[in-house]
């Protein structure tokens, strides 16, 4: 492993505490990923990235910053990467997925805040994540109350811009989101000193569409009864795609998809025939949150799809590339992003439609609907999700958990019983 200590020190990180985090990660990666048999060879890229997750990509970002480029940190799949890229900016995801950061978050946030929000704030204020140190500007959004208030606290420590996501999906809301995107574009131009032209925005739209298509190609392979990749590996790919350079991300996903398509032709599956196929849905699984997938896949089932922000919500639907004016492009962006079905919208029946469609496409035997503790939106939506799936004859298990491992035994019993129920 390369030595990144100087870089971390230059970033003003809490070196001592960060060492504690660095010590536990290799064991987790070994247990969850490397212990699997018959993995696709192309996973070597993600194995490398995750083994040096606080080194390789942060070092690249710093090199780009030296050339004058700005790094924008985001927390939500509603923030349009295209606009930032059109101004020669770089996007990195910032969501915290480890219990490690929660205590630092709890120093300023109520305990009854979702662990993702607490971990994100803790990662910044505790100075134990390089991505949170590197980002020149954070771009927040109004998708949940916990985040909205947390952004006010983060904004005292780092430049913060908030996009106002509509709460409904009427025509006027789509127009409103278009205006929000246009206003954001102005802010990005101002912050980067670069002008966004229709040509540049068109190129950025194409670039991100290509990334979406590549991610979709890998997911398409998971629809096959010959399952060529585990849910854990696919999840890792999706999680890393929030941090990576979009062109390289597309290239690596396409390389993986090539191998998976060949595996399907050759009948190479990572599980034995008859293994129960699970779709997981609910709140996002930020790096390094692999708890749910790991329990499911070590209890005898396979995860074949994630209807989550770290899943299909991230890459389904493309932006119309035929627009040639900024106005037309902003509208095309708004239309695409407003197709994403998040529980912050009311009503959110589109998510039910997605779940029923995906259950068919991915040939799932059962759905596990899991939300992070204190996520009122997804927790409440479990009622209608569970009712719709049951009516369609699809068994569903509703769970709630956080980042701690304390409930692993109970989760294992419930998930085990659910898998036995499917057999």
């Amino acid at each position, binding site marked *: 492993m390369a030595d990144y200590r100087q870089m971390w020190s230059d970033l003003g990180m809490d070196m001592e505490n960060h060492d504690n985090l660095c010590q536990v990660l290799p064991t987790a990666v070994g247990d969850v990923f490397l212990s699997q048999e018959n993995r696709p060879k192309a996973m070597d890229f993600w194995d490398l990235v995750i083994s040096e997750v606080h080194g390789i990509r942060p070092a690249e970002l710093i090199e780009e910053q030296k050339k004058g480029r700005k790094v924008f940190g985001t927390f939500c799949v509603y923030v349009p990467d295209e606009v930032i890229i059109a101004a020669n900016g770089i996007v990195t995801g910032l969501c915290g997925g480890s219990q490690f950061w929660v205590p630092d978050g709890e120093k300023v946030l109520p305990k009854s805040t979702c662990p993702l929000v607490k971990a994100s704030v803790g990662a910044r204020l505790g100075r134990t994540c390089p991505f949170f140190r590197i980002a020149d500007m954070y771009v927040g959004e109004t998708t949940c109350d916990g985040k909205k208030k947390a952004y006010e606290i983060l904004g005292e420590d780092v430049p913060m811009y908030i996009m106002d996501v509509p709460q409904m999906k009427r025509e006027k809301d789509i127009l409103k989101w278009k205006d929000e995107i246009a206003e954001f574009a102005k802010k990005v131009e101002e912050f980067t000193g670069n002008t966004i032209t229709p040509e540049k925005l068109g190129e950025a739209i194409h670039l991100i569409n290509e990334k979406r298509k590549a991610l979709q190609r890998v997911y398409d392979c998971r629809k096959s009864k010959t399952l060529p990749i585990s849910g854990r590996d696919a999840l890792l790919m999706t999680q890393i795609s929030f941090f990576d350079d979009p062109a390289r991300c597309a290239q690596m996903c396409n390389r993986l998809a090539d191998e998976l398509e060949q595996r399907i032709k050759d009948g190479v599956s990572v599980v034995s025939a008859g293994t129960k196929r699970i779709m997981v849905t609910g709140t996002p699984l930020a790096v390094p949150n692999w708890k749910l997938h790991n329990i499911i896949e070590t209890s005898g089932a396979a995860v074949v799809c994630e209807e989550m922000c770290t899943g299909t919500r991230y890459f389904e639907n493309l932006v119309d590339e035929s627009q040639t004016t900024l106005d037309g492009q902003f509208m095309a962006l708004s239309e695409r992003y407003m197709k994403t079905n998040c529980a912050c919208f009311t009503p959110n029946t589109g998510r039910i439609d997605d779940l029923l469609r995906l259950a068919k496409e991915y040939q799932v035997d059962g759905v596990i609907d899991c939300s992070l503790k204190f996520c009122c939106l997804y927790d409440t939506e479990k009622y209608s999700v569970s009712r719709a799936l049951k009516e369609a004859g699809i*068994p569903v298990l509703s769970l*709630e958990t956080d980042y701690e491992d*304390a*409930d692993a*035994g*109970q989760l294992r*019993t*419930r998930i*085990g*019983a659910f898998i*036995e*129920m499917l057999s």
Partner: protein
Amino acid sequence: MSISYYAGIDIGSTCSKTVVMDGSGKILHRLLRPTGWSSVDTADAVLKELDGFGIAQDERKVVSTGYGRASVSYADKQVTEITCHARGACHIYGTDNLTVIDIGGQDTKLIVVQNGQVTDFLMNDKCSAGTGRFLEVMANTLSVRLEELCELARMGGGVSISSMCTVFAESEVIGLIGKGEKRENIAYAVVNSIVQKVASQAGRLKLDQTVCLTGGLCEFEYLRKRLGEVLRCEVIACPDGRYAGAAGAALSALRLGES
């Protein structure tokens, strides 16, 4: 030698139950022992008891279940307690369609079984509210045995405790004792609290078929009666209900032997 014994071992958080069946599903032996601090030691003790019955390794199939199921190193398979309670209850109560309520030491399970298959289930979060542990702690505070607590409750009324958390409920009970509240009224409040908690969980499931009680509390007649009143349906129970999980595990062993 051919397989002629099918053992199910249910290592619960409080008690460990073992059931041995013959090839026809008839229960030959029942064993009950406290789990104690080590489920591995408990599993070893059960093994010695099996040996004591003259059941040799090559003539038995063993399935383990319960919270300590992974500690039974000699088990041929582990099956979750949800599946086992469902199978066991169907066997004991002689029906393929029922709803099982298992009030265990550290969790409460509600399981809907249709045509012998689990179709839905609920488990409370790892918390002692609405569990056997709650009753146990309260019985201790009132210096009575569990059975006595339930019988005392029958004669009481008029008092309620509002805390769901066992620790806070205990101080509430101590407060009631301090105020000179009658023991039977406090006992009533304790039993009522657990019944209400279970009923609020059950509200999420359809209760349109026979409801049966399994687990260590199924012999407590008054608890069963109150549960029926609050759920507005008949709740059935029998002494073997305590062994439902172990019986279900033994039936799973029987399936293992057949396949």
